[in-house]
């Protein structure tokens, strides 16, 4: 009977707490063009981060690599990638110039049979400018094929990518059986520029044995959430908590 006064009225619920919002953010499905900058020399953490987001049950992946990137970072090694959980075939394209990488990726972006496109370019070449990335992003949006660009040796020049990540390796977890051996891998993933969401920094772990692809990449927000500056309404709340 107490409810009679509020019966039939619109009641506004309290907003979700800041903890829920920042602890469970990440990968919201693929976006048109994602830049991944590996920190450190020849660090495959960026490649692993991309692999963790690739679909597992669709068409082949187009993997384009230029000569400089191949020399500096090594070649993608399929036995390792299959062990990492990748089950789709990979169409590898090896070119000598970054210009051809962009051309091959644009060709691939028009092809609906691919599940994803991964390009690797080393050392911020001239051709990989804002215009080129914008073309890629528009093509990717049109066809719906997610495009990932791994840019090693690149300080973060201008790009039209919808999301830009910096990924680096972190010391791994303890091995369950051998204290001297490295255990499950961990990365630090920093989203430093994004179009439709707040930037942030996370600790990522990956478990290839999970049955569902969505569960494999696990992200935990770091304590110092760099994304929430002092002006953000939830920053004070987070600092208290």
């Amino acid at each position, binding site marked *: 009977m107490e409810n009679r006064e509020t019966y039939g009225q619109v009641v506004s619920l309290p907003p979700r707490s800041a903890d829920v919002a920042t602890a469970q953010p990440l990968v919201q499905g693929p976006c048109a063009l994602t830049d991944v900058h590996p920190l450190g020399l020849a660090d495959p953490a960026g490649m692993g981060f991309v692999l963790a987001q690739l679909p597992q049950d669709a068409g*082949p992946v187009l993997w384009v690599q230029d000569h400089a990137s191949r020399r500096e970072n*090594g070649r993608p090694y399929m036995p390792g*990638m299959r*062990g990492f959980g990748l089950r789709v075939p990979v169409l*590898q394209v090896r070119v000598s110039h970054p210009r*051809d990488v962009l051309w091959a990726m644009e060709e691939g972006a028009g092809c609906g049979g691919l599940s994803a496109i991964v390009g690797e370019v080393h050392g911020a070449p001239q051709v990989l400018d804002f215009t080129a990335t914008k073309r890629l992003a528009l093509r990717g949006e049109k066809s719906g094929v997610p495009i990932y660009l791994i840019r090693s040796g690149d300080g973060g020049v201008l790009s039209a990518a919808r999301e830009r990540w910096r990924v680096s390796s972190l010391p791994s977890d303890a091995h369950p059986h051998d204290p001297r*051996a490295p255990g499950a891998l961990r990365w630090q993933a920093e989203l430093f520029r994004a179009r439709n969401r707040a930037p942030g920094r996370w600790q990522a772990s990956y478990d290839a044995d999970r049955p569902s692809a969505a569960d494999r990449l696990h992200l935990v927000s770091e304590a110092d959430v760099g994304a929430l500056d002092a002006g953000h309404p939830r920053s004070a709340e987070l600092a208290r908590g």
Partner: protein
Amino acid sequence: MRATREVRSLPAADVPVVLTRQGPHGPVVCACNDAATARGVRAGDRVVDAQAINPDLHVEPADLEADARLVERLVHWARRWCPWSVQDGRDGLILDMTGSTHLFGGERAVLRDMCQRFALQGLSVQVAMAPTRGAAQALARYGNARMICGPDDVGDCLASLPVQALRIGGTPLSVLTRLGLKTIGLLAGVPRAALMRRFATLPQDQNPLVLLDRALGRSPDPLNGPADPVHFMARTRLGEPVIDPYPHLQGLVNGLCDALGEAEQGARQVVLTIYRIDSECRHVPLTMARPTRDPVHLRRLFEGKLDSIDPGFGFDLLTLSATRVEPVSRIQDRLDGKRDTQADVAGLVDRLSARLGRDKVTWSTWVQSHSPERVEGRVPALAGAPVPPEAEVEVDRPLRLLDPAEEVQVLYAVPEGPPQQFRWRRVVYRAVRHAGPERIAPEWWRDRPGTRLRDYYKVEVQGGRRFWLYREGVVHDGRGGTPRWFVHGMFA
């Protein structure tokens, strides 16, 4: 007709040469030249026996599949003399020359022409002409050289030949030999009823009476030759020589695709040929991952491929021919109206390969090997669809592999132990944790002798990077000095 392919510059004619194939108890002779035949070597002999008798015997392995392909092609090539031809046995051709000998100046001239043209190709032949198929092959294999047998003297010509000439073998042959019926003439003299009674249970192609009737023309034995392969080609003849081929390409592509569409075929390989007015020609080949007859796709593949052609003073003839075709039906394969995604990927492979090169666009192929760099090979994507590996690699493998492995300077506590610190690309890394070693021995059946084993370690350094290092060899293994260390890959 018997074809023996002379593949390359073989020894002189007086050197005995045999071709061998694998028998159940080692190699056996499969074919031999005249010099070897004169020495008594026969097909079916064991090679070791023949070599023991003739130490100077030249032995080569036979390529039976290539021989079969050659005979298949010769069947069609032989239609220069007549409209119907068919393969006969493993090494013979039967040509139905009815009504076409006069075009070459008579029967004797045709046989001479055949011998000459086969000799020009490096093939030795035995030819004969007879009214029936069975008689012709018997005379060619067992009769005199270039024998011509008229319709009335078939029985006389065959009479002196052994019964094997009729392709009688196995049990009926031994029965006939036991009865003393060694020649066809003797066989033909036996009353039909007696032969019929004795061999009634045998199938048609083994029954001596049926074979004899066919050879003598008493029962029909028609020729069923394979159809001629259709050659798909479109051509454009120009009144005046021109320099730029691009404006004429669309018409050519449309013409070819229309022809392919009518025959429900798709092209896997096309060649554009440009005939210059100085009687030179230039070829531009293209290969597709899937048979196609889409004019837009074909036209796109030629983008940029013709820029490097030197047109000289111009050209006046362009042809576009499909050199490899495969059937593609016109039946709709989807009901939901969506695009065929596999065709999309095949089209992408075509475009990438046409522009970047066939070897640059690859799928992974899987090799059974212990060596980490050999496990994965590359196969051109144009060659076909990707195949998944037969078995997954269960052990931990890095995401990246350095090719070749890069040498590092290492500090270690014990020579057989893991590294404590290493220096790679002028940066010092201090190892914190390690897993291993995983010992991978060299493959003695593949590697050079003296190749050292490898001990692989997964090493995590300060800061979190994970490397895949190996030590090549162990101390005092007698295969070189102090073992060297290499970085071979990086884990995520």
